[in-house]
């Protein structure tokens, strides 16, 4: 009779019981979340003037984080493709855990967009029916649709799979396979639509280049799988789930190709801008060499460049990608590299110089950093709790109750 309530307590018990490291990790995330929330309240109280954004650079750190995380959400699921093609042993783990990561990532994406809004109290104005959503004209309307659709899709697939597993039932491939297949082009779509947000603005020559969406995808295919490789190592350490080394090494090889393409596209952009040397060169010059003495982003961009190239070398050679020390080093380097390049390195130069030729050097304030940290912690917490529950269900250590008592 009360089995749904009992099951609720099963979930609660699974996610609240852990060792000291687990509690320390949760406490750390919770603290950062509180700091973030308090900072956001401060921002609500004073307005966005508390950020470093101004009319000249009207999007900053929040939107930068948003674009990076969309890549994480997309790329994790894209791993499903090679998993099927190469017939990796742990396909199920890859599908399940990358979908859980996508759920956490989309949660963060939505939060980053919301904290960037000037009037969060009017959020409903962009919804269809309740508000007046400008569909299909506004790419932001498209983004709202694809992001929420992607969230729903991943929530459904992962929760359905876990629910069936917890009842010791094999999940029905008839239901789930078309959805998994649908989630692949959908993952590409969230990334493409986000790229198009920037890409469609003729006022901003730096973004208005056709190479933007392909580069978005290429760099996402670097950072997303890199994060997954680290997560897989953690999962197999803390649980009984076995993840084959071969699968991880194969993913590393794929990341090398993706980074190769990303670097090639960057080189193509460099060539076009610097050889033709038109006035549209300015943002690129600002990024890598500084413009009229303004050089805030220059050290960051070269750091990203060095990190990406180093990671590329480490990933491409079998000796280094099959050694966990160098592999993990490469994963960290590539995440930082792509974070810089696709975050601040993408959104800020669209605004520098401004449309009227002004140079405003943006660098985020403490409040912006704390709010962002809070959102990252929220995402990490969501993912931690999801995985904490998913792992024992996957290995069969945790089972639900049904009408007839405990599931065996």
């Amino acid at each position, binding site marked *: 009779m009360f089995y749904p309530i009992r099951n609720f307590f099963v979930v609660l018990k699974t996610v609240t019981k852990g060792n000291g490291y687990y509690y320390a990790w949760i406490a750390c995330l919770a603290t950062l979340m509180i700091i973030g929330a308090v900072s956001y*309240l401060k921002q609500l109280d004073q307005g966005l*003037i508390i950020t470093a954004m101004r009319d000249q650079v009207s999007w900053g750190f929040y939107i930068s984080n948003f674009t990076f995380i969309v890549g994480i959400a997309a790329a994790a699921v894209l791993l499903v493709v090679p998993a099927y093609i190469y017939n990796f042993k742990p396909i199920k783990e890859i599908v399940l855990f990358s979908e859980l990561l996508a759920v956490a990532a989309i949660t963060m994406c939505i939060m980053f967009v919301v904290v*960037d809004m000037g009037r969060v109290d009017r959020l409903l104005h962009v919804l269809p029916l309740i508000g007046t959503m400008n569909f299909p004209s506004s790419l932001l309307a498209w983004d709202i649709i694809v992001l929420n659709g992607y969230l729903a899709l991943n929530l459904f697939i992962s929760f359905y799979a876990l629910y069936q597993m917890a009842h010791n039932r094999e999940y029905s491939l008839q239901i789930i396979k078309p959805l998994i297949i649908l989630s692949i082009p959908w993952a590409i779509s969230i990334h493409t639509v986000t790229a198009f947000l920037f890409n469609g603005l003729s006022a901003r020559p730096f973004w208005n280049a056709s190479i933007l969406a392909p580069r978005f995808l290429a760099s996402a295919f670097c950072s997303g799988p890199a994060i997954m490789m680290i997560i897989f190592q953690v999962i197999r350490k803390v649980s009984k789930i076995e993840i084959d080394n071969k699968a991880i090494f194969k993913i590393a090889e794929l990341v090398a190709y993706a980074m190769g393409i990303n670097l090639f596209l960057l080189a193509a952009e460099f060539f076009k801008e610097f050889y033709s040397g038109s006035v549209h060169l300015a943002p690129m010059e600002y990024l890598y060499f500084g413009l009229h003495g303004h050089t805030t982003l220059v050290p960051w961009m070269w750091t990203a460049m060095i990190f990406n190239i180093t990671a590329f070398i480490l990933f491409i050679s079998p000796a280094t990608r099959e050694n966990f020390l160098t592999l993990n080093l490469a994963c960290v380097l590539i995440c930082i590299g792509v974070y810089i390049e696709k975050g601040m390195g993408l959104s800020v130069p669209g605004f520098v110089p401004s449309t009227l030729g002004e140079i405003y050097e943006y660098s985020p304030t403490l409040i912006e950093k704390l709010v962002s940290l809070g959102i990252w912690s929220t995402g990490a917490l969501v993912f931690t709790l999801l995985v904490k529950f998913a792992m024992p269900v996957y290995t069969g250590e945790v089972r639900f109750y049904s009408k007839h008592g405990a599931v065996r």
Partner: protein
Amino acid sequence: MNANNTDDKLEKTFTRRGFIKGTAASAAVLAIPVGSTDASVWQSFFQNNFHEMSPEELQDTIHNLAKKYREKYQADFTIKTNGPRPDTLFGYGLDLSRCIGCRRCVYACVRENNQSRDPQIHWISVLQLKKGEKGVSDLENANMYYAPDEVPEDGYFYMPVQCQQCENPPCVKVCPAKATWKEKDGIVVIDYNWCIGCRFCMAACPYGARHFNWGEPRIPKEELVTETHYLGNRPRYRGVVEKCTFCIQRVRDTPGRYPACVEVCPVGARKFGNLLDPKSEIRYCLEHKRVFRLKEELNTSPKFFYFFAT
């Protein structure tokens, strides 16, 4: 001239006590709609997009707005909602050879349109460009912060830029909430009660014409202009975008009045009129002067024409 330096100030005030105070205050702000018995909070929350309001709803809204402005500014506001005049398409002309860069237009605009004084918002930016260097297609060397004792300075010319009222406005296309649109008389307007503050339009505008209320807009009480239009110069809110509307509150009157910037210009560099009227001054300029528009390659088709009359 935005408040770029304010964040330094804000950083300094970011002490622990200030932080806690701010938090308490914002918690209080958040609590208002829940605990308040005042129906107007809910009324403004549920207020419709300007497009979608019935005449009765519009009247209610105006009444409610006027009441709120009275509470906030202790002044009686007239808020007009009159629509476009028939057979009218407004156009603007600016004679670059006359402009002396005195910025009287900037300040007349600030005053007439109730722009925030702190933080400062200017709908018109006057660019100073060096004669004989790059023209107006590369604005990288333009300077909008020139401050000599006297203008015009030798060797420079001046180019004021404001909303170009594009026929093909990129800002309208990108707004996710339909909070900004082009009216029949060609003026691009914003519903300040519908804007969600995402600033996508600012990224899309090639002319830097859109401005955001980063902080609470402040206007000295004695400088308020209370004769307003819903889509024009009524006081704005924190967190919304605003821009030039060709002084919609003036030009839609019958008989129409000139925008404040046209009226104040001491050298007659600014021309304004109905593009559909063959006898208008703006049509005369278009037909007799060598006219160009800013960033024409973007195909936004501005109704703001620059020319060199002499």
